[in-house]
């Protein structure tokens, strides 16, 4: 499984269309939860005639520049939000039901053993330069790009099972056959993988120049996809402009050619506060509302003519975790972590005490103005089906926490107000988080105080984001960190976090064999889960996994913020959902006549 890293959160796999939606959501501003109440009032009225739907523009904002327009090479959310408009996959995830639906493939068949999948492609699909789309493009994307040993794509890890790739063959111009080495439950969701044009990229691959193709200095005309929009202009540090793809294949239920909106503009702004100002002055149409913004924005709804949608709990997660890496630096032989600290952090009692010491209610009150949810399960409520509440929930209870510590031998032996372990080492350690994310800084500061109340001595540091990530993924010299991850519907896509060999198994990454029995069991559960095609049977495995995580606390979860999005009342056909956010049906959204 591959990892994608964004400044606000670490991400699970970037692979599918599905994941791109997740990234998109967290980076820009919209998110998830179940059906919205506002829906009926926003549906188009009958008297509107066809030509009036077309044209107009939607202005969004993002806080950082894309690094590439090459979807295979893209590793950051700032790049994938751009490519998600340009490219399509064979399948997509329905934002209402979260089920996998046909997209570039109109249907598929699967053999009885679940290993051979035949996809029938949609007829008449064209790339945005007019060239026809065919099975050759699908085969090219997999065989020449993803499985190309000279291209370091993150998708390769996802579509390789036990070191074996899928066999991808063209049957005829509109039929592709995938042969899997073993059963792979998230296969259909994974087929949201963006398909790239063979006619544009073949030469680059032959010249071995693909890794540098479609960088940010490329002429936008060259970037060809099947998605609803095409890039027409990119001014670094200022804006990205998309125009509607006139060849887009999708029709509305009334048979009209989509998309409706003529242009989609991304303004690149330095921070969330600038986004808020620009939203209030009317420059941008959509703003991702933080809990602390809500009391300011909500009363302005009528006067400023926008609507704040509450989409329910965030799909991501925020947590504190401790370094349990017993390894040593391969060259110097110096242990990543002093032995006494390793002993505390691998002590379950220590982590249980911490879990009891976190005042989640006050975090929600102070940081989110009450607009948040405590989190205990490793698969958040946003994931829907696979989420379970049947986990150990740790109430805020300093007495219990102190008792757990005292019973485990952590006592204040020299009466200096700070606990010592049985060998007399003071419980003093460093707590890091990344600078720049004000909500997370507040959460970390509150947790720091909670732990000091337990009698620990914490040196709190906010580090520059890349410094922190390199500590977690390469130098391994850290004690405790407060961080966030994005989540999604498919639990297997969290494998790089949960499998003991995972690179984002942050408390003890890249293990050759599982260090503990429970990590071994989680590895087993993930293997079982990925090979089981029945959703109900899979849920049993992932429920057990969530229970183990809540018992063993490798990550101690804190709170989920409510995902809220403010949208100017200029658009029709908005159908915000928990999973898809506000823009999941961007191609169907059109502007009100009077707003143009």
């Amino acid at each position: 499984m591959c990892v994608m890293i964004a400044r606000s959160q670490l991400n699970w796999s970037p692979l599918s269309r599905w994941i791109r939606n997740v990234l998109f959501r967290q980076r820009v501003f919209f998110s998830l939860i179940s059906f919205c109440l506002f829906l009926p009032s926003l549906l188009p009225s009958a008297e509107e005639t066809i030509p009036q739907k077309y044209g107009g523009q939607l202005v969004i904002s993002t806080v950082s520049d894309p690094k590439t327009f090459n979807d295979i090479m893209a590793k950051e959310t700032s790049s994938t939000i751009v490519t998600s408009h340009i490219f399509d996959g064979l399948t997509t995830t329905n934002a209402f039901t979260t089920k996998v639906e046909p997209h570039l493939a109109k249907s598929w068949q699967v053999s009885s053993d679940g290993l051979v999948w035949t996809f029938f492609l949609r007829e008449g699909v064209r790339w945005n330069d007019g060239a026809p789309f065919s099975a050759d493009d699908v085969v090219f994307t997999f065989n020449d790009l993803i499985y190309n040993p000279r291209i370091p794509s993150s998708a390769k890890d996802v579509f390789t099972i036990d070191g074996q790739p899928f066999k991808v063959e063209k049957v005829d111009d509109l039929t592709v056959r995938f042969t899997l080495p073993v059963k792979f439950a998230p296969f259909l969701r994974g087929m949201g993988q963006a398909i790239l044009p063979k006619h544009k990229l073949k030469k680059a691959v032959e010249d071995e120049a693909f890794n540098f193709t479609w960088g940010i200095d490329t002429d936008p005309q060259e970037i060809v996809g099947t998605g609803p929009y095409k890039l027409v202009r990119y001014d670094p540090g200022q804006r990205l402009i998309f125009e509607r793809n006139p060849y887009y294949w999708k029709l509305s239920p009334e048979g009209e050619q989509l998309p409706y909106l003529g242009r989609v503009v991304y303004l690149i702004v330095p921070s969330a506060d600038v986004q808020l100002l620009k939203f209030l002055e009317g420059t941008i149409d959509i703003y991702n509302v933080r809990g602390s913004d809500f009391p300011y924005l909500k009363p302005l709804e009528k006067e400023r003519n926008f609507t704040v949608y509450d989409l329910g709990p965030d799909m991501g997660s925020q947590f504190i975790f401790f370094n349990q890496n017993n390894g040593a630096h391969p060259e110097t032989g110096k242990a990543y972590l002093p032995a006494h600290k390793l002993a505390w952090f691998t002590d379950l009692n220590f982590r249980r005490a911490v879990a009891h010491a976190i005042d989640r209610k006050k975090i929600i009150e102070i940081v989110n103005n009450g607009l948040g949810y405590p989190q205990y399960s490793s698969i958040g409520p946003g994931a829907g089906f696979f989420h379970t509440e049947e986990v150990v929930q740790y109430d805020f209870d300093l007495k219990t926490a102190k008792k757990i510590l005292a019973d485990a031998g952590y006592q204040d032996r020299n009466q200096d107000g700070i606990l010592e372990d049985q060998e007399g080492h003071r419980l003093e350690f460093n707590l890091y988080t990344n600078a720049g994310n004000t909500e997370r800084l507040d959460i970390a500061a509150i947790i720091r105080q909670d732990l000091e109340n337990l009698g620990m001595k914490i040196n709190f540091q906010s580090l520059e984001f890349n410094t922190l990530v390199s500590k977690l993924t390469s130098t391994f010299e850290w004690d405790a960190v407060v961080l966030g991850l994005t989540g999604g519907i498919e639990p297997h896509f969290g494998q790089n976090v949960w499998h003991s060999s995972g690179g984002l198994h942050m408390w003890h990454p890249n293990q050759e064999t599982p260090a503990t029995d429970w990590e071994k069991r989680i590895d087993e559960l993930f293997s079982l889960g990925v090979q089981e095609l029945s959703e109900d049977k899979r849920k049993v495995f992932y429920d057990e996994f969530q229970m183990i995580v809540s018992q063993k606390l490798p990550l101690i979860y804190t709170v989920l913020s409510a995902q809220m999005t403010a949208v100017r009342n200029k658009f029709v056909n908005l159908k915000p959902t928990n999973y898809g956010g506000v823009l999941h049906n961007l191609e169907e959204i059109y502007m009100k006549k009077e707003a143009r």
Partner: protein
Amino acid sequence: MSADKKHLSEFQIALRNFKKNRLACLGVVILGLLYVAVIFAEFLSPYSYKNENRNYSYCPPTVIQFFDENRLVWPYVYGRQLEFNAYHGRIYTIDKTQKYPLRFFAPGDTYQWLGFLPGRRHLIGVSEPGRFYLLGADSRGRDVFSRLLYGGRISLSIGLIGVCISFTIGLIVGGVAGYYGGRVDDILMRICEMFMMVPGFYLLLALRSAVPDNFNSVQVYFAIVVILSFIGWAGLARIIRGMCLSLREREYVLAARTFGLSDRKIITGHILPHTVSYSIFAVMLSIPGYILGESALSLIGLGIQDPFASWGNMLSDAMSIVRIKFAPWILLPGFFIFVTVICFNVIGDALRDCLDPLLKSEVKG
């Protein structure tokens, strides 16, 4: 010729000129008050910098009540209760049934004054569970007034310590380069230029990233002081060097040399003292740079870390317009930085006017 025409020393003349500048005198008074206040921060503040009460997030400043049923009574404050309104905004309702009289020399958080003198009396306070927020509370219900005093201790001292270090380096390097001249001068001045070449703030960030992450707060504080003075010395060294170049040609230096004084004694005893009038106002004018440097680092989260207060990291709380709208008092650290910087600049200007020999002759002329 009367008694008031008696001979005045240079210092007395300077002092007399300085006193004529009303604005500068006001600056001295304000700065004096600030320094006294932060030195006695533990005693003057009602709470410790890390005393938090999460039920009073962004609690507005407490109104001190003097009247009870139209009768003048001992000042007291009402208890307050946090509620969220329909828009999830914070509303503090006054609970008139709870009254907490102000207490002088009230017992409260224990402290060690300046690190050694233990105590628990605070100039003013109310008894628990009442809370007394003279200038409002921050996100976790910590008293902004108390934190301003503790934070001022860092912000105000960082300038003084930093300036001491950088001026020591600057004077030595400038003096040596100017006195010896030639190759020594060339080498030292090129080193200076290397420091001046890099834009200050980037050098600051680069040096900050070289500081180990596992430093505790005291170590971080000193690291920041050292970093700031490391950036500040080069400009001074160049000017001192220029002054020394001309001073070393003076007759008294020649005299000292013929008497066989060592170079070290000539530099420290005969040359550098003549740069003092310049140094004094240069010191004054460069202190704001240190205060702003620390604030900038802390503002972006790389300086003094929570729970310790500095004006810069308190101000980082105010980087959101929504917070400023609902809790404008979190901007106060910015006001204090502003006042302090202005004071140092005004005093520095006044000192230059009354110490600079050229200007002085014009005034007399």
